[in-house]
């Protein structure tokens, strides 16, 4: 179990690294967010038959679809309800994660 001081040092170090990347989202956090999609869309977005694969798909296309689901512009059975749970920044980050995965 890490001590409070270790936490502060690590936190400060990570904070500095974060600034250097112009507030890029923490890649491990994004990986965890994206992993939530895997229950339907496959581990790292590589889907089994019957669902859309997200691995290697176009980031812009995924962002547009999600924002359209979120706004109710794109018909869906379930994705309009799930898309509303995520901010635009989170959708961008998750889409970038899947776009970078090997299909």
């Amino acid at each position, binding site marked *: 179990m890490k001590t409070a001081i270790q936490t502060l040092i690590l936190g400060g170090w990570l904070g500095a690294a974060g600034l250097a990347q112009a507030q890029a989202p923490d890649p491990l*956090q994004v*990986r*965890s967010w994206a992993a939530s999609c895997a*229950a339907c869309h496959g581990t790292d977005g590589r889907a089994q038959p*019957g669902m859309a694969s997200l691995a290697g798909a176009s980031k812009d296309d995924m962002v547009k679809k999600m924002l359209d689901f979120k706004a109710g512009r794109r018909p869906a059975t379930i994705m309009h309800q*799930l898309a509303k*749970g995520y901010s635009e920044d989170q959708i961008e980050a998750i889409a970038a994660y899947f776009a970078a995965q090997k299909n």
Partner: protein
Amino acid sequence: MTRRHFLYAGAAAGVMGLTGRATAAGGTGPKVVVIGGGYGGATAAKYVRMWSDYSVNVTLVEPNAAFVSCPISNLVIGGSKTIADVTTPYDNLTQRHGVRVVRDVAASIDPDKRIVKLASGAELPYDRLILSPGVDFIYDALPGLTHPGAQDRVLHAWKAGAQTVALRKQLEAMPDGGVFAMAIPLAPYRCPPGPYERACMVASYFSKAKPKSKVLILDANEDVTSKGPLFKKAWADRYKNIIEYQPRHTLTDVDVAGSTLKFELKDDVKAAVLNVLPPMRAGEIAVKTGLATANKRWCEVDFLTFESKAAKNIHVLGDAIQVAPAMPKSAHMANQHGKTCAAAVVALLADKPVNPLPIYNNTCYSFVSDEEVVHVASVHRYAAAQKTMLTVAGSGGVSSAASELEGQYAMGWARNIWADTLA
């Protein structure tokens, strides 16, 4: 475990990775033991391996030879699927991910020495323990079911496997004109919509094979606990003369010889086939380790890590936990717990900070006929002020109507979550 030790172990495992991931288990890296190979535990085992770049050793303790899914198992009871259709071996966890699977039962845990003792007598030391024990049943309140052999005659079929097949056989053996009576306990219990889906599946079977037979739902709750309007519409439209729903029926005992259910303040119900879902609590191993601190039934956890609030270095997942508000005890949710916990365990073993903002979703499909399905969905986000998971305002919802399209999605969901959990 020191940071240096972990980094060294990680480097060693990296070398081993060149010669095959499956050989890494049993190496010199940190040791994680996972108890329970259901949706929560199997997912956690796989993702701890993946997300540690195969440097953390993972041993999964599971008594069953293969994974049998509760979701879709109501279709086995209804006769449109077989038990083989909902069964997946554990082989890929070992062959692809190097998880050491030990077919045994965890008999006890020593949280101070950090050792799991198995029924076979073997001992497994751990740096961190992930406990995904599922539910066990509280039979104390149902004395008739504590008699020898009673639980083999009046089934729960609420852990998919032999009981699922046995309940199907009881329905096949039942003469036409018989009554199938199912007792539902007060929430919380595993899989809130599951009993109502089961009623649909049995009614679907009766409508085809035994049209004079009835399904009687005797629910301890005030009303249908999940997807109420959608289930009630299915019962009215499809099973009008088959399904009868009666709320506020608290089961007090079962007369097994007389095939009769006894209720508080309500008349006895005699039926050809009884199906009793007893009240539930966290799996036995969690309770006897002193982790079930909520009402002596459920395990309280830190939702950033799933670490037990009662014991350090022990994480509890899945149906066994004291849930956050509006968080269902579902397979999908257990899979999400598994990944959140795996990320936290890998970070903690490396003395790194954990994700301060978990976000994950729940999707639950229910069959109302052999083809048509309804869903409920939600998105859950960590709320730092309340230190729990809360649903995101405006997200989630249920189907507008049952459809065959959602029936296809339901099977797509099953194939994907089985692969995400086990392959």
